[in-house]
């Protein structure tokens, strides 16, 4: 079902949801914030920090007592197609479908409703289509927002939870030409994304390319500006490497999965088996191998959703697309 709302009506809807839910959405600072606290939102921005992943796998993990996010149902508004792809295609598979399931992740996931939004104006760093995605959700979203040129919202929804959230709101269907306008906006966004990166079949071919190319000279050249900060992994919607650490809660030791990064020098090292990440180029190549080959073998989709966040955060200005181009140019 598709309904239409003005911006004012949409804000009223958010306020109504906020009565019984914790409603988060991208704010004007490029973060995901609580609507009640920040008020203003900007659905056109691509939040780099506190992405959807952090609601389920926070950087420092959850203490044994659980999370304050479980006090009320959580709604994240404005998640992107790339976020949903990472969630359904990778994280849910690892933490829910692969036995044994992670009960903490499961309870947070059950408590979470995702409201996706079309990318009307993708960033210059976006290349989701080349990795098998699209700038709008084609399937799997319970509630999806499309913003029309006059600022009005088309809300497409299905499923029990969506009906619960939207069922009693005033019904006003799309006007003549609204769907066509939405499709035109989507087509323009797709054209823009296609123009951002020339390798159109990255989804299927990049893994093999990375696997075949393991020359220290090639990877040394492309990794020269990497300072091993791990930012690319932390903002990545599919990266979930972690270390189980102990933290104290009062007098009690508790366990929490805390983020790790394959770009760190000591990643996966052990006294008996040395340090696989000692050389920078090997760590750097591992990330590409993991994203385009290992995760694709395991999950059927690449671990890169082409969201471009890693390109935006890298202090060394390393662009994943430049690295891939370098590999594709080697024949």
């Amino acid at each position, binding site marked *: 079902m598709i309904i239409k709302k003005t911006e004012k009506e949409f804000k009223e809807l958010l306020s109504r949801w906020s009565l019984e839910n914790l409603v988060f959405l991208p704010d004007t600072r490029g973060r995901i914030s609580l609507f009640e606290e920040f008020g203003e939102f900007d659905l056109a921005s691509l939040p780099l920090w506190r992405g959807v992943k952090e609601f389920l796998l926070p950087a420092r993990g959850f203490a*044994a007592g659980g999370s304050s996010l479980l006090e009320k149902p959580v709604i994240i508004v404005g998640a992107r197609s790339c976020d949903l792809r990472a969630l359904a295609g990778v994280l849910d598979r*690892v*933490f829910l479908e*692969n036995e*044994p399931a*992670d*009960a*903490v992740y499961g309870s947070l996931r059950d408590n979470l409703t995702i409201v996706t939004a079309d990318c009307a104006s993708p960033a210059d760093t976006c290349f989701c289509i080349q990795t098998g995605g699209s700038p709008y959700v084609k399937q799997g979203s319970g509630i999806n927002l499309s913003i029309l040129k006059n600022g009005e919202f088309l809300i497409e929804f299905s499923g029990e939870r969506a009906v619960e959230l939207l069922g009693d709101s005033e019904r006003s269907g799309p006007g003549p030409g609204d769907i066509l306008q939405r499709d035109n906006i989507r087509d323009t966004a797709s054209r823009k994304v296609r123009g951002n990166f020339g390798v159109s079949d990255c989804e299927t071919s990049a893994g093999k390319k990375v696997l075949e190319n*393991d020359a220290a000279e090639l990877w040394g050249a492309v990794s020269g500006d990497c300072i091993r900060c791990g930012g690319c992994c932390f903002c990545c919607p599919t990266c*979930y*490497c*972690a*270390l*189980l*650490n*102990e933290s104290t809660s009062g007098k009690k*030791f*508790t*366990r*929490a*999965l805390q983020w*790790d990064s394959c770009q760190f020098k000591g*990643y*996966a*090292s*052990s*006294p*008996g*088996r*040395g340090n*696989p990440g000692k050389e920078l180029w*090997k760590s750097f190549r591992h990330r590409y191998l*993991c994203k385009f080959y*290992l995760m694709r*073998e*395991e999950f059927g989709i690449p671990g890169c959703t082409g969201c471009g966040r890693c390109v935006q955060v890298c202090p060394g200005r390393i662009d994943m697309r430049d690295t891939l181009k370098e590999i594709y140019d080697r024949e």
Partner: protein
Amino acid sequence: MTGNNLYEPVRGVIRGIIEETPEIKTFSLETDEPVEFYPGQFILLAAPGTGEAPFTPSPRPGGEPGVEVTVKRTGDITGALHRKKKGDTLGVRGPCGKGFPLEKLRNREFIIIARGRHLASVRPLILDILSSRDSYPSVTLLYGCRSPGDLLYRTDLEKWGEKFRVLKTAETPGESWNGEAGPLPGLFSRLSPEPENCSAVVAGSPEIIRSGAGALKEMGVDESRVWVPVEKRISCGFGKCRCCLAGTYYVCRDGPVFPYSRVKDLPGLWV
């Protein structure tokens, strides 16, 4: 399984400590909840405040509830474990992994090659052999250690030698040593398996695994019937943290025991 939360350990109280060698101790732990494991699976043992690491559990003698774990001092965590005394508490998680495919090992000729502390990872399998002796028509254990002082499970080895063929060697034997002398690969020529009807386990450093599996291959034993315990850094234990990834396998979830044919060419695994 350790309750609802995969990552919370159960309490294990140290009821006994055996000093196997100056660097290796075996801890006998009584756990709050039973830890039911299969030979080849591993548990995660935690020294509270320091961290946890994977070890191979064996059953406690006499069927007492809990586990026995042999620990070699190599780093911070094993160092902290070695400082623990009788009555101290450790954290125990698991069991994790798949373990040995006993159905593929039983009713065949069976060869075990192990060096040093790695005998600990095949000990539960040897205990299975002892408890189901009829299922293993022919068993040979080749065990190598640095010196007689580094010999693991010395009383057990004597008893095992009464039940099946045990050949042990020390690289620097002393005067009282009653085994062979020289590196473990020197014993490989003493094997004469019937290749079609033989399975094997090789436990040791990457060099021992490579040379052991290589020697067996030369004797005609297919690499898919040679099982090797793979060691990697383990953190979550259940395939949730990607720390132990070896190619497309999670050592903690899909292993830690693999057919050699499946893992021998994985890049980075045998560094």
